[in-house]
């Protein structure tokens, strides 16, 4: 699942650290910020102040774990984002919590990342949470991953121990069919192989972590994909209706013949008269993926939120039944017949669980007996939904931004239900 809706390729690259609790994600980022002189004088003095109040070794993690609860418990609770300055290319480092109870915060951070650093402590090796985070990166479409094998100092900088862990990591990536860019041995607390190569690890021939970030690629623009423009709202400014929304993929052009898909009125052909931009000297003639725009049509057409604009050549799919590979982070299990709300772009529809095809646990998939079928907290599963009304969609593999959806509890009065899951729409089960 590609993580981001059409980001600008000129934007800073966003990199998330993932991995199990206490494998050193925040310490690694803290050290990276410290050694690249990315912290301001005020941030440095708070870091030193926080460490004075804290007993034990100096904690670089406090540069990111700003809450006193985080510092006193030495954990990361919620996701944070810090720029890495003083480098030719701009990076935004996203620090995510490793604890299972904070998985939804990890997903919040990972959903806006372009790449990831997987941190594995050499003392503990691959843990269940390591596998789960990798599984989620795969679901979120993050396929640029650098592995940092941390805490080499605890095992005397042993090459043998590193190679053994590296082998296990390679096997796991293979099983998940995920690529990795590099596996780097380091000791975050000491800064060894973080920004510069360390003489403590003379047997390692590759680059340190920071220079290897330059190998990461910026996200590709989605301008070449089929056009998908969902109506977000209709305003009445200047007499005629002004349709607003964001181009989710492809390119929208003035005067081109387009199809307007409505849940209530079927499909109509129509042309766009203008793209209106307040304050612009020239009205734009086209808009590409990621742009929030306002348009006026050539002829009258009654449209509303959730309606879709495409080209005649690439119509959307529309169905009452969808199979979704989802990640489930609600405490209560997902059960057969359960009622939920599906949200895809600006569409919202009620649905119920028609069947739970299988659950993915780590690297194995489990098919359960019909009567035992349920998805537990933090599991990944393939689930089929029966929809109250058909939804416009695409297969996730074809158009990521309109091939993924979010699942909430049914809404109460005047409020939207809590978000309990997200996932990508499969063209056939098991083929993600």
């Amino acid at each position, binding site marked *: 699942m590609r993580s981001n809706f059409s980001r600008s390729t000129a934007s800073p690259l966003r990199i998330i650290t993932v991995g199990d609790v206490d494998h050193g994600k925040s310490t690694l980022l803290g050290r990276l910020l410290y050694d690249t002189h990315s912290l301001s004088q*005020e941030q440095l003095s708070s870091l030193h102040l926080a460490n004075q109040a804290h007993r034990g070794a100096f904690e670089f993690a406090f540069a990111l774990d*700003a*809450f006193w609860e985080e510092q006193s418990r030495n954990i990361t609770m919620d996701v944070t984002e*810090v*720029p890495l300055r003083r480098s030719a290319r701009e990076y935004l480092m996203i620090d995510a919590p490793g604890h299972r109870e904070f998985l939804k*915060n990890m997903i919040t951070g990972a*959903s806006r990342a372009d790449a990831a650093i997987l941190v594995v402590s050499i003392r503990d090796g691959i843990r269940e949470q390591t596998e789960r985070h990798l599984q989620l990166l795969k679901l979120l479409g993050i396929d640029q991953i650098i592995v940092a094998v941390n805490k080499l100092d605890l095992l005397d900088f042993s090459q043998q121990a590193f190679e053994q862990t590296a082998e296990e990591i390679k096997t796991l990536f293979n099983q998940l069919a995920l690529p990795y860019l590099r596996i780097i041995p380091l000791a975050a607390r000491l800064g060894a192989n973080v920004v510069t190569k360390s003489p403590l690890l003379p047997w390692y021939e590759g680059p340190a972590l920071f220079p290897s970030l330059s190998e990461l690629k910026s996200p590709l623009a989605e301008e070449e994909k089929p056009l998908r423009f969902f109506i*977000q709202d209709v305003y009445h400014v*200047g007499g005629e209706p002004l349709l607003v929304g964001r181009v989710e993929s492809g390119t929208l052009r003035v005067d081109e013949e387009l199809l307007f898909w409505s849940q209530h009125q079927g499909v109509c052909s129509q042309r766009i008269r203008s793209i209106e931009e307040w304050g612009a000297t020239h009205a734009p003639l086209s808009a590409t993926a990621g742009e929030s725009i306002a348009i006026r049509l050539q002829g009258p057409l009654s449209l509303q939120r959730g309606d879709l604009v495409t080209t005649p050549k690439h119509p959307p799919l529309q169905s009452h039944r969808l199979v979704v590979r989802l990640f489930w982070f609600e405490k209560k299990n997902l059960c057969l017949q359960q009622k939920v709300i599906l949200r895809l772009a600006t569409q919202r529809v009620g649905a119920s669980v028609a069947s739970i095809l299988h659950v993915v646990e780590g690297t194995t998939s489990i098919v359960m007996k019909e009567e035992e079928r349920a998805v537990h907290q933090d599991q990944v599963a393939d689930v089929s939904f029966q929809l109250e009304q058909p939804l416009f969609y695409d297969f996730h593999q074809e158009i990521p931004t309109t091939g993924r959806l979010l699942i909430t509890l049914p809404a109460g009065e005047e409020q939207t239900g809590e*978000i309990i899951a997200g996932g990508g729409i499969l063209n056939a089960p098991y083929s993600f």
Partner: protein
Amino acid sequence: MDHLDFLQSQSIYILREAYYAFPKLCMLWSMGKDSNVLLWLTKKAFGGEIPYPLLHIDTTYEFPQMLAFRSWAQEHYGFELIIKINKAARFGHAPYRTPISYETHDPLTVTHELKTVALQQFMQEHPYDGLITGIRRDEDATRAKERYFSPRDATFRWNYHNQPPEFWNQFVVATHPGSHTRIQPLLDWSEIDIWRYLEREKIPIPNMYFAHGGKRYRSLGCSPITHPIESEASTISAIIEELLHTPHSERSGRAQDHQEPYAMQKLRARGFL
């Protein structure tokens, strides 16, 4: 699309989602640079109109130049402006025993009473359920952990222990009685992004941000506790150049942030922006 276009589109999308979701919406506006970017984005999002009122929490310690800008902007843009002052605190009326002032109280207390409590009073007096703010992640380590749509209960508490998940631009709208949602469209913008956008769009801002006699204000708040920085930057491009090389934080001149460890966490947990 360049990076500013991307940020602009993302913020406009968030503003439009907020306008769709909240029947009673207003926008905090403090006359500062971020506030004026928010106002500009509002005009872009709604075809040149400003469809919700602006709210200024007036601490009575505003710089006179800022008040002059407030009057000018109201005339220039023609928006609906609500000015809220915690008068009971300033005059020492019940439930306060003595007037709250910088002369008699510490910055954390004054900030809490004249900003957070003033906002609380306003929200109790008026049934707004959506409040647009201009906070950014890079301003402060606790703001870095915020959401675009951030719920607050009736006591204004920020439940940072259990924030809702937020991804793929789907936002949660909870309207329990007395609660409200903070809508934060500028979270992704950095201080330099703001300046580059102000320059590109030629957005009017108070001239206190530009150097006069070797000093300028990098961040603006209450006059007794806001300090200028040494600077010769009298144009936006000079400011951007300065920011690219400064070793200091944006809010280093704001006393309430630095009064004690975790000052911002304490302020924000109780409802400060």
